[in-house]
């Protein structure tokens, strides 16, 4: 099991804090992403994972950028997300990524697309943070218990 060096990412990506908010919501879980792998994850495990704690007991959420050294401003990038329960991957019904700029009152200008790589392992393409300022990347995790929103806050 790789370990996450959160502090280096705090400096490097300007991650302010990682918030987790879990609340129940039963809607909209029908459109499950088919589990067929689309593009393989990078073989080299050179990029370390950032961790985001979820409110769901024992759930661990990890993410990393896979096609850039750091989160780029106004350039689309791809990221990987891993969801674990304890130490083992946990399956979800669906994962979505929404964006929001709390100070600007707007979100993404394009919808990222999510594909499933493996159990609890996702690839998100087309993430575009088009402006400087504070961004909230809101990962929406749907499972049988409802919706768990994990917020990654970034300062670009």
């Amino acid at each position, binding site marked *: 099991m790789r370990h996450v060096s959160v502090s280096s990412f705090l400096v490097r990506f300007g991650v302010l804090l990682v918030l987790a908010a879990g609340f129940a919501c039963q809607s909209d879980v029908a459109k499950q992403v088919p589990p067929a792998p689309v593009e393989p994850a990078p073989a080299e495990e050179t990029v370390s994972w950032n961790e985001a704690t979820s409110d769901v007991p024992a759930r661990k959420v990890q993410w990393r950028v896979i096609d850039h050294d750091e989160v780029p401003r106004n350039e689309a990038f791809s990221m990987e997300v891993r969801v674990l329960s304890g130490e083992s991957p946990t399956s979800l019904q669906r994962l979505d990524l929404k964006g929001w700029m709390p100070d*600007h009152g707007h979100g993404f200008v394009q919808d990222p697309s999510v594909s499933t790589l493996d159990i609890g392992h996702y690839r998100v393409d*087309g993430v575009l943070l088009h402006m400087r300022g504070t961004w909230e990347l809101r990962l929406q995790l749907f499972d049988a218990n409802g919706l768990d929103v994990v917020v990654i806050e970034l300062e670009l």
Partner: protein
Amino acid sequence: MLTPEQIELAREFSPLPEPPADPTNAVYEDLDAALLGQALFFDTRFSSNGEVSCATCHEPALGFGDGRKLAKGVAHHPRHSMTLWNVAYNRWFFWDGRKDSLWSQALGPLEDAREHGSSRLEIVHALADAPELVRAYTEVFGAFPNVSDSSRFPAAGRPVAEQPRHPHQVAWDTMSADDQRTVNRVFTNFGKLLAAYQRQLVSRRAPFDVFVEGLADNDPEKLAALSPSAQRGFTLFAGKAACHICHDGPTFSDLEFHSNRVATGEGVDPGRALGVLQLKVDPFNGASEFADDGGARATRKLQITPRGWHIPGEFKTPSLRNVAVTAPYMHEGQIATLAEVVHFYSTLEGAAPPDPKGEKLITAVQLTDAEQADLIAFLESLTDESLPAELRAAPAPADNATR
């Protein structure tokens, strides 16, 4: 003088790199294509009245604009002509971004009744009738198709949305799918030639760029390129006035769409909200069969193109490079001078009311008169018209004859 943080910030705006690649246009970086595109750009034969060329509204001596409030080609146009300086750096084209490539953009004005007022069949025939152009075309793309059979290739025609009885649509409907594709191929190639020319219209060594180089080299001569007033103007631009949140990066544009609350004339111009919808159904968008990369790249770009939250009246953030030579300003040419633009952002006098559903990005930045003067000096330091003169006029006829 700039603080270390401001120096770091200045580096985010310069240098401007090479224009990005366009894999949907195989001849984008081909110099023969650019030269032929340049000839087409200045050629009035591709308009319904024989008087209009791209340069009519994109005049090199007027910052590749027309100096008019609203454009006028064959007829009047409801929007202001955009500058073509650094046009190749865009992600979307037109004020509303209804095109996703420079080549596809060029097809719009040719068939727009207010601009060239032509049709793709007329364009293809006009090309076929110009042996020097056919020769140059053949060198870039290979054989030019035979379109001389007027029963298969009517003199004029194009698809006309929602007007099945329009004579252009009627003529188009008489053609076989194969012949239509032949015409569309030449027509899209025409756009790709124009794009190859426009890619050359780069401006990236303004006094501000020289100054930023000077910050790295510590070269006093380069540092002198930016007056103390313009330096203060930069710190306002990327500080108190926060212009940089939208006019960001070395293009001085985030390449996306916003309302800056400039008031508009009568009638609602939906801007980006409509542009998105038009782009998705455009038969010449980057996912079409005419994209030279097979549409692979654009398919994703289009899948994830904006949706819901665009309120009516958002327009593309214009680049501010060469802005001092491209008056008047804004999508309807509402504002005549840079001083008035800066006064507008400073006071929001006469601004449209904020849309409660819109972004919260524009507030009166309340600059003093001295600060406004500094900000204007900074905007004026973004001028570089050093493009070789031979790229700013129709190519000499000899260039075509020798081909």
